[in-house]
C-alpha cells in the first residue's frame, strides 16, 4: 500500500518537495515552539540584572576569540559537575544571552560560575599567558587583549540592538553606554556612581586590568568573566520550581 502511494509520489517533484517539508517540520514544531509557551521552561528571577556595556563588550570578545570552542557555560544536573563547578545552571541564568554560550566541548573547565572565583589580576595574567600561572595549560595566550583599546563609541547601538531582541535596556542605559563602559574601569571617576545606579550596587567597578585610564579589551573580557554566574542568585536559592 505504502509502496504504491510512494510510487505515485515519486512522479511529482513539487509533491515530493512538499512532503519533505511537512515530514521534516514536525519535529521542530513539537520541540521548539512549546519552549515559548510553557512558562515553567524559564524560572523567574526578580534579582536578574543586565550586562553592563563593558560586560557586553567583553562577552562579544569572548565570542570573537572563540572561547566557547573550549569552554562550556552550562553546569549539567550531574553530581560530579555540581561538586566541581557549583550549583547546576538554570535556564533563567542565560535568559538575556543572545546567543547562548552553553558550549559543546570542554577542553578547558566550565566557566558558568567563574565570576569571583579568581582575582582580576589572576585573570589578566592567565589571559596574557596561561602557562605563566598554570604550566600544564593548553589554552592560547591572548596578549593582544591587553594591547587593544576597546571600541566603545558603538556600545549605545549595541544596547539598542539588544533591546530589539528583548533585553530590557532603558533609554538611560543606552544614552550612557559609552560613558558607563569607561567609568566601570575607573572607580575614582565622577561617572562611576552612574554605573552602579543603572546596573545595581553589585556591579563591579574596578580597574580590571590594573590601569584605570584606558579601557582595553582585557578590561572588558575580565569584567565579563567576573560576572559569569552572578547575574542572579536563583541557582543558589532553594529550588522548588519543578523542571
Amino acid at each position, binding site marked *: 500500500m*505504502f*509502496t504504491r502511494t510512494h*510510487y505515485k509520489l*515519486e*512522479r511529482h*517533484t513539487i509533491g515530493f*518537495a512538499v512532503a*519533505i*517539508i511537512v*515530514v*521534516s*517540520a514536525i*519535529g*521542530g514544531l*513539537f520541540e*521548539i515552539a512549546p*519552549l515559548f509557551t510553557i512558562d515553567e*521552561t*524559564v524560572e523567574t528571577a526578580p534579582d536578574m540584572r543586565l550586562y553592563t556595556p563593558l560586560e557586553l563588550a567583553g562577552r562579544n570578545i569572548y*565570542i*570573537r*576569540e*572563540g572561547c*566557547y*570552542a573550549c569552554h562550556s557555560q*552550562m553546569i*549539567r544536573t550531574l553530581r*560530579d559537575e555540581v*561538586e*566541581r563547578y557549583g550549583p547546576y545552571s538554570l*535556564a*533563567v*541564568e*542565560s*535568559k538575556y*544571552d*543572545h*546567543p*547562548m554560550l*552553553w*558550549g*559543546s566541548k570542554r*577542553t578547558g573547565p566550565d566557566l558558568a560560575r567563574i565570576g569571583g572565583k579568581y582575582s582580576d589580576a589572576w585573570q589578566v595574567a592567565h589571559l596574557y599567558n596561561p*602557562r605563566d600561572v598554570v604550566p*600544564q595549560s*593548553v*589554552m*592560547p*595566550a*591572548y596578549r*593582544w587583549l591587553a594591547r587593544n583599546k576597546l571600541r566603545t563609541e*558603538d556600545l549605545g*547601538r*549595541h544596547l539598542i*540592538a*539588544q533591546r*530589539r*531582541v*528583548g533585553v530590557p535596556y532603558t533609554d538611560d542605559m543606552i544614552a550612557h553606554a559609552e560613558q558607563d563602559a569607561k567609568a566601570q574601569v575607573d572607580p575614582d571617576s565622577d561617572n562611576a556612581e552612574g554605573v552602579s545606579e543603572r546596573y545595581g550596587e553589585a556591579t563591579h567597578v574596578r580597574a580590571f586590568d590594573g590601569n584605570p585610564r584606558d579601557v582595553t579589551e582585557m578590561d572588558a573580557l575580565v569584567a565579563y568573566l567576573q560576572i559569569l554566574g552572578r547575574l542572579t542568585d536563583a541557582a543558589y536559592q532553594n529550588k522548588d520550581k519543578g*523542571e
Partner: protein
Amino acid sequence: MISGLTLGERQTAVCLSLALLVLGVIFAGAGQGDPLGVHGFIIAAYAVVVMGAVITGYYAPAPGADRLTQYYDDPTKFGIIVAMLWAIFGMFVGDWVAWLLAYPDMTFDAAWASFGRLRPVHTTGVIFGFGGNALIATSYHVVQRTSRARLPDQLSPWVVLIGYNLFCLLAVSGYLIGITQSKEYAEPEWYADILLVIVWVTYFLLYIRTLARRQEPHIYVANWYYMAFILVVAVLHIVNNLAVPVSLTEAKSYSLFAGVQDAMTQWWYGHNAVAFFLTAGFLGMMYYYLPKRAGRPIYSYRMSIVGFWGITFFYMWAGSHHLHYTALPLWVQNLGMTFSVMLLVPSWIAAGNALMTLNGAWTRVRDDATLRFMAMAAVFYGLSTFEGSFMAIRPVNSLSHYTDWTIGHVHAGTLGWVSMIVFGTFYSLVPWMWKVERMYSRKLVEWHFWLAMAGTLIYVFAMWNSGIIQGLMWRTYNDGGTLAYSFVDSLVAMHPYYIARAVGGFLFFLGPVIGLYNILMTIRLSRETAGTGIAEMPVVALKAGE
C-alpha cells in the same frame, strides 16, 4: 569554461559580477572602522576576479546549438577541483589545531592564529568548503543523468557555485578577523547568511527545474536525498540565523532567541546540519555512485523508501540530545533521546542497502580502491550512526558530552563516512567528466585509500581513548566519596592522545594532496588524448532546444 556560455549568459555574468562589485565597494565604504569593511574589500576583490575570468573568455566563439544535446558538466568539473582545494585547506587547518592542543605555544602572537579562531576555520572549511562543493558538484551530475535532462540554463549553476564559495570565503576570513556569531556550524554573520539564502534559493530552483524536465517518470532515490538536503538546510539555516544586526554598517548581530530557546534552535539546526548536510546529501551521492561503480542494482527499492522517510522524520526530533542534563526541560531531552534511538533503524537501513548492493561485487571491492572507498564509507556510516544513537542515550551522554569522545564520533562520521564517500565518488567521476578511461594513477588511489584508513583509525581510536578517560576522570570518586581528579589532571592525561590524533590527522591530510595531484594529472592526460578515451557513461540523446 566561459566558452560554454552563450553570449547573453556572458553579459548577464558580467552584470552580476558588476553588481557584486558595487555591493563590495558599498560595504567597504560604509563599514570603515569595522571588520565589515574588510569583508567589503574581499567581496569587491572576489567580484573583480570573477568578472576578469568572464571578460577574458568573453570573445571566445559562442557555443553551438548542439550543446543542448549534451549534459552541462562544466560546473561539476569546477566544483570537483574547488572541493579538493577546500579539502586540503580545511584538513591542513584541522591538523594545525590538532597540534595546537598538544603544543599550545606552537603559535605566534597573532589573534588570527589562536585556537578559538582557527577551529571554526577548520570546521567550515571542511564541512561547507569541501563537503558543500562536493555535494553541489555531484548533485548537478546526478540530477542530469538520472533525469536524462540537461540543466535548464547555464548561468544559475555558476551563480550557485560562485556565490556559495563567496559565502565560504567570507565565513573563513571572517573568523580570522574576528567575525562570528558563535553558533556552531552557523558562525557567519548576518550578511553572509543572507547571501547563502539567495544562493540556496537559486540552487533549489535549479534543481527542481531540472527535475521538472526529466525524461524518466520516476525521481530516483539519490534525488530524494539531494532534495531533502537542499530543502531542509534552507529551513534550518533561515530559522537558526534569525538575528538583529547592530547596524547595517557593522558585522555584529545579536541572535533573535536567547538562552534555552536559542540553545534548542541551535542544536535543532546543528544536529540536522549533520543530518541533512553531512548525511542526506552524501547518501544521495552514495545512492548514485556506489551502484554505478559496482555495476549492481540497488539492493532494495523498498528499503530505500523506508530509510529515506525514517531519516527525514526521525532526525528532526533528535537535536536535543546535544543538550542532555542541561537547563533544557527534561521532556525535550527525552524526545531527543528516544527519537535518536529509533533513528538508528533507518540509518542502518540506508547503510545496509548500500552494503547489500555490493553483493555480487565484492571481488571488485577487493581490487578497486575507488569502490573500496565507497564500501568503507558505508561501513563507517553504519558505525558512526550506531555510535551516535548510543551517545544519545542519557546516561551514556552524561559521560561522553563535552569530551573528546564527541570529537571521535564526529571524525568517524566525517573522515570515515563523508570524506571517503567523496573520494570514492571523485575517483569515479573524474574520468567520466574528463572523458578518459581511468584515473592517472591507480596506485595513488590505493595509497590514498590506505592513508585515509590509517588516519581515520588512529584519529578515532585516539579520541575514543582520550574521551572516555576524560569523561571517567571527571566523575571518578575515591573511596571517601569525593572527586578523585582535578580538571588539570585530566588535561595532562590527554596529551599523548592529542599527539596521536595529530599524527593520524596528518596521514589523512596527505590523502587529498595526493588526490588533487592525481586528478590534475588525469586532466592533463585527457588533454593529451584530447578526450578521445571512451566515456564510461553513455551520452544519452537529449531533446534539443529544451
